[in-house]
């Protein structure tokens, strides 16, 4: 691949601005990306990262300013043009065609392939590309059966096949296991070797330090800083992101005193998913489920909430043996489940905050004949707005217009209003910015203090260590062990989660 002269950036934005009626905008961004560098972009939600990507990939057009590729001014009207310019993007949710096989997924939009498909050549070329990435993947398999990591591989192969010069990766590791992250990092390094500029967007600062050469911080649609990674610290980066210093993770050293046993799970199992899960949960206790993606932690949450009932084992809630076959029964027992997927399972995005907040406890707001007492409902939601610091002028706003962190708080409000005895939080801070993350953590601690028994399912190990009284580690549907927080460390939890050490008896 021909390299442009050293001093000409492969991609440059000059004074780019973009305004929307409702969502985050970009103002006056000037920014350069060099060939062969991994350039991380960080910032809180709403900082303008997504808008930036959309402008580079031609999904949006800037209102003013110019975009230059290899020193030449370009107008990227749509994604096809971006592709021709050698710009490709890989998103957190991989963009594959489930009904097509791997090879066709890679080459579907290729002009070079000609009008008539030559299937044999297609498979051979695809195999070559997949080999070059350094993984094994049957190119004849339908994409519907691929894991997320495999789907990402397909996307990377697609980008490579297009001789991509600028590859944007938007939160590529959000749903990957540790192994898969390692593999992805290796691929990124290889791309860099080939002179590809990788724009790497991530909430995980450790990853930024691990692979990025330079890092750019955006805040409120403005370009705050661009530095060599060697010259910044985590603290300075966070300060740039939020505009103030934050004591991010106060490590919890001592477990809370906790009260009576509210939940007792014994030998829980579901065919082919998980088996032999046993634990107790007490009033005022925070129990964290740690493990890699795919370790079936969420499935335990779904079983306790009755969405996907367990097939074996017993559940005792407050000392009473209970069978939970649907969410309604779970709620009647005082169990609440805050899903990891806000968009698909958590909130009705085009409905206002108050309607979302009252949904699970709607019965409370019904007067005679099933009429909704709107005033009471509204007052309740508004109360949570102040209590949880939901940043919104009132509770009439559609939740879809809020940032990720505020949406997460609406989810919490919705379930707190059911006054649960047992609150299950599934990845409560995924896609939530640093500032809001600390706030969510504080809310969780307060709840525990008030006597709620909390289960937190999280892939974020620092978060687990900051919140938990006890940690249950899972791996591939099996319970590997339970730690008291006093005995837990990043290393011993990880060793169990990855299977490097043997399962241990509950502490």
């Amino acid at each position, binding site marked *: 691949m021909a390299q442009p002269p050293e001093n000409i950036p492969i991609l440059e934005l000059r004074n780019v601005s973009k305004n929307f009626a409702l969502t985050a905008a970009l103002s006056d961004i000037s920014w350069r990306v060099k060939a062969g560098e991994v350039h991380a972009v960080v910032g809180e939600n709403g900082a303008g*990262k997504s808008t930036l990507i959309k402008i580079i990939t031609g999904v949006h057009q800037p209102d003013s300013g110019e975009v230059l590729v290899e020193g030449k001014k370009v107008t990227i009207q749509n994604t096809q043009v971006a592709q021709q310019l050698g710009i490709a993007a890989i998103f957190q949710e991989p963009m594959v065609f489930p009904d097509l096989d791997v090879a066709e997924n890679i080459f579907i939009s290729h002009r070079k392939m000609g009008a008539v498909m030559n299937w044999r050549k297609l498979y051979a070329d695809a195999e070559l590309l997949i080999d070059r990435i350094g993984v094994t993947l049957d190119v004849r398999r339908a994409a519907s059966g691929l894991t997320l990591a495999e789907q990402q591989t397909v996307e990377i192969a697609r980008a490579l096949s297009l001789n991509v010069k600028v590859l944007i990766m938007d939160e590529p590791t*959000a749903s990957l296991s540790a192994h898969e992250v390692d593999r992805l990092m290796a691929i990124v390094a290889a791309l860099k070797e080939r002179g590809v500029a990788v724009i790497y967007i991530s909430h995980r600062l450790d990853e930024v330090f691990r692979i990025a050469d330079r890092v750019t911080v955006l805040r409120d649609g403005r370009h705050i800083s661009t530095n060599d990674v060697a010259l910044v610290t985590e603290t300075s980066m966070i300060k740039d992101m939020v505009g103030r210093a934050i004591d991010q993770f106060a490590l919890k050293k001592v477990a809370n005193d906790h009260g009576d046993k509210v939940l007792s799970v014994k030998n829980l199992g579901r065919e082919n998913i998980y088996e032999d899960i046993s634990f107790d949960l007490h009033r005022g206790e925070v129990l964290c489920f740690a493990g890699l993606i795919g370790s079936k932690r969420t499935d335990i949450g779904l079983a306790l909430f009755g969405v996907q009932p367990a097939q074996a084992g017993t559940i005792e809630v407050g000392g009473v043996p209970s069978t939970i076959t649907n969410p309604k029964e779970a709620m009647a027992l005082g169990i609440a489940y805050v899903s990891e997927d806000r968009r698909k399972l958590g909130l009705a995005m085009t409905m206002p905050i108050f309607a979302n907040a009252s949904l699970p406890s*709607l019965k409370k707001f019904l007067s005679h004949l099933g009429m909704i007492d709107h005033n009471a409902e509204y007052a309740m939601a508004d109360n949570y707005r102040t209590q949880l610091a939901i940043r919104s002028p009132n509770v009439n706003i559609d939740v879809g217009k809020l940032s990720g962190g505020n949406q997460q708080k609406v989810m919490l409000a919705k379930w707190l209003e059911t006054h649960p005895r047992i609150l299950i939080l599934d990845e409560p801070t995924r896609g939530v910015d640093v500032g809001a993350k600390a706030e969510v953590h504080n809310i969780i601690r307060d709840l525990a203090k008030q006597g709620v028994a909390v289960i937190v399912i999280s892939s974020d190990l620092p978060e687990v260590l900051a919140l938990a009284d006890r940690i249950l580690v899972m791996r591939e549907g099996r319970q590997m062990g339970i730690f008291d927080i006093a005995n837990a460390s990043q290393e011993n939890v990880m060793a169990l989660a990855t299977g490097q050490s043997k399962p241990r008896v509950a502490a």
Partner: protein
Amino acid sequence: MMLKSETQSWKTATFFFFKSWEGLLVIILAIILSANMFLVPQFLTLQNQINLFQLSNEKIIVALAMTFIIISAEIDLSVASVMGLSACAFAYLVQGGMPAGVAIVICLFVGAAAGAINAFWIAYIGIPSLVVTLAMLIGFRGLARVLLEDKGIGNFPEWVNALGRDGFIGPFPLAFIVFVILLIIFGITLHRTGFGRQVYVIGNNADVARYSGVNVVRIRSILFIMSGTVSALAGLFYAARLASVRGDAANGFELDIITMVLLGGVSIFGGKGSMLGVLLSILIVLNLRNGMALENITGHIQTAVIGILLISSVLIPNLIENLRISNPTKKKTISVSGE
């Protein structure tokens, strides 16, 4: 989404009303009414106003039920066939010597059963309502034809014909009174009750509803059984009004019914819409048809106008949005993480 009011203040609320879909409908209705009054002298007579409703009374009753179905992000294409089935079953039973009163009750149960069949496949098995009700559009119509083959059956008891023909309270026929009662009940149910709220949430995102403890299967079942029953009732009114039934009774009515609902601002993707909008669009469609009929425009052209209205009710908001946003590709919903 720009059209929606975001503030509680009444002053701005009235301002937004005229920028909202309902506001637009009021304006369109006003234009049609004035045009009709200007063009057709007998337009404002009571008899014409009653006629205007009477000719479409069955459709507008079903439109009320359809509003619930579409807000819950489903569709029921089988309503006209259920109307036909109920009308044919009534004719068949009465001809077989059954008292009309008993036949009416049985026909309502037939409608509920038809709705329950839809509900079973849609709510319990999980097959999309578009496919199920399309199959049942054919299936129920087929059953109606099985009952009457190619005969036309009339000779209903005189009181049945009278119900369809004459005023029940004053000059208002029973079907019209039933429409008004259902409008009030359905309007309150949709906008003021917990059930209505749950219907909106299901239309917005059924998984969110399920994860919030809403019994989605039950609510969907209720809606389709309700739709079937209401359609059967409408079919009976149709039979009574025409005093004779053939196998193709009410054939193709689903087009008009769905048009009324969508023109009323109910989103085909669910979760959005109001009874007020549907009422306004019913008035628009009826007055338009009535005006055209009085101007001696044939039924087929009227159907074409309805077809154009149906397409425009979705196309025009889209075009306006396109104009507002310089680049049309922008609106594409692409889920990009982060924001």
